[in-house]
């Protein structure tokens, strides 16, 4: 029983990092109907920003954390302007967006390898490694912080999308971009905003990831899992992305814990495929013609 509860805690903590990353994929998808594969690159750069602010410039933690999030925000918007806007202006097919995104993602990764280097960097230790202990359960301080930060960020995001005027405009654009434009919504601004929000969350996710697991150019291997979680939860749906991520996190831990860690990816991804075959729009997705 103790082991089961401990594994649930492990799963939740892994899932909450996935969730922060997954909502970025979902947000962009809901507006632009394509998968922004360069999101992983923005997360990685966010982690590097955090590292440099903390370890090299010696900023206080809160500043470094916020600075990294802002840095990623700027970067995500820049990415949209450079890689996607020209395509949008020419009404290019969605496939072109995906190719452009993949190109940007490879470019960012290699840029970091060429300039900063391929080896990993270690964040200075911010929180004590002494875990909280409740009965026989151990909960890491950093994990608690990651979980709370993720939950707060996601709650704020839901509030922003569901209860503010701008959020309403985003939802309207997601529903039908052309009609919303006719109704006087500046869809170009909405797209920038969505990338900015996605970028901010990417920065937060990057720093949290870096603190827990170090920073390296190939973080993409983890972000791709969060992408899959987003698809599983239903691309375009925020609650779906969060639930999909938590389920993937729990699934991974329970399989490693009770079956075999070697089969973890095999089994968890087979299950995901089965669910998608039975329900192609994902757990909470809205029906959509194109899924990329």
């Amino acid at each position, binding site marked *: 029983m103790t082991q089961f509860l401990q594994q649930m805690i492990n*799963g939740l903590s892994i899932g909450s990092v996935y969730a922060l990353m997954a909502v970025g994929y979902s947000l962009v998808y809901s507006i632009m109907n394509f998968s922004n594969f360069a999101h992983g690159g923005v997360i990685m750069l966010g982690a590097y920003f955090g590292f440099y602010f903390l370890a090299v410039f010696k900023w206080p933690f809160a500043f470094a954390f916020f600075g990294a999030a802002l840095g990623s925000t700027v970067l995500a918007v820049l990415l949209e302007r450079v890689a996607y806007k020209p395509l949008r202006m020419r009404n290019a097919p969605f496939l072109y967006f995906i190719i452009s995104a993949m190109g940007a993602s490879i470019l960012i990764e290699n840029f970091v390898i060429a300039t900063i280097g391929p080896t990993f960097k270690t964040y200075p230790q911010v929180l004590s490694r002494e875990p909280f202990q409740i009965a026989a359960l151990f909960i890491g301080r950093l994990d608690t912080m990651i979980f709370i930060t993720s939950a707060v960020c996601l709650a704020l995001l839901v509030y922003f999308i569901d209860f503010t005027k701008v959020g309403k405009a985003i939802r309207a654009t997601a529903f039908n971009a052309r009609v919303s434009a006719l109704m006087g919504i500046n869809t170009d601004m909405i797209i920038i905003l969505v990338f900015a929000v996605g970028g901010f969350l990417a920065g937060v996710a990057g720093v949290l990831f870096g603190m827990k697991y170090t920073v390296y150019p190939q973080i993409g291997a983890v972000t791709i899992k969060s992408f899959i979680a987003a698809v599983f939860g239903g691309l375009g749906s925020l609650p779906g992305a969060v639930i999909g991520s938590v389920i993937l996190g729990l699934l991974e831990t329970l399989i490693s814990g009770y079956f075999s860690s070697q089969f973890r990816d095999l089994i968890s991804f087979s299950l995901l495929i089965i669910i998608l075959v039975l329900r192609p729009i994902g757990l909470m997705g809205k029906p959509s013609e194109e899924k990329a």
Partner: protein
Amino acid sequence: MFKRPKRCVVTLLCLVLCLTLGISAALAAEQAKTVKLGWIGSLTGDQAVWGQCELNTVKMLAEELNDAGGLLGAKIEVIGYDTRGDAMEAVNCVRRLTGQDKVVCIIGPNASGQAIPISSILEEMKVPDIATVATNPKVTVVDGKTKPFNFRVCFIDPYQGAVAAGFAFDVLGLRKAAVLYDVADDYSQGLTEFFVKTFTEKGGTVVAKEAFKFGDTDFRPQLSKIKAANPDLIFMPYFFKEVALSSNQARELGIKCTLMGGDGWPSEVLIEMAKEAIEGSYVVNHLDFDDPDVMDFKARYIKKYNRQVELNGFLAHDAFLMFVDAVKRANSFDPVAIKNALETTNVKGITGTIRIDKDTHNPEGKEAAIIKIVDGNYIFQQKYAP
């Protein structure tokens, strides 16, 4: 205006030429008792520091030997070529050493990637080679077949697993072990296999054996499972980044038992990332720089070259020792006779006793250095062979 050179000048020049030729011929006759020993390794590139140290070591030892009267009455001349860390270049170097320079034996290279492809040339030219720090099993044995002219002075990677198991059982007195390993890595798998085999043969129990895949960053599911099995020791045969992450996570889960690892551990980064988590852990390595046995050589080297000895230098020292011992026992400089003598090597080197197994061409049962992490420092404990 052009003046013909005077006849007497021409004669003089001819005379000088003849004299020089005569003297060099005489010198050549004098040096007939010189025997050539080849060395290959990286003198440029990433591994240049290690290669340079090896060549320095071999040259120094040859000089010392020559000053002391040489080997079987002959002087040893060391010829070293740069492989630039490249497998193709290593093959070329061996071709030159065996074809053109006619060396009787080759020491090096320092990496498995270069030591593996040279065997076909060695077999063609029938010259033995003693690799220094090439730890991949395939350097001497491929598909169960021993390569006749390849030898090595270091122990193979997986052997560290056996050392760790023996040390944990016999010296630390631990009886329940768990292993966490990288399923996608030969090195990690080899160490795990030998660890489990030795530990169970000695009478211990392996209570959990959990795997992860290279690239993973979270090990808590596996560690929680290990924790439930309540081991006295967790063996972690992989590299320092994963060691740092997994040891931190183990402590976060409240696991308090001893941790142990192989030569993938020693690194300043590991201390920086996981100082508290790995305190009191044990590491198995080829040798330790503070081992009393290596002190004499270290002092001689530093005196001559005024710089520190790298790990490779110590192993090059013992490779040279193996060569000298084999020549003495063969009582000949014939490469094939040296090869046959190498197969029955049993000498005490500074890195441990080197007893070559005829069937594997590896030093079997060689002692490894056991190092303990105390206050963020790697402290030498003892030499140990299972």
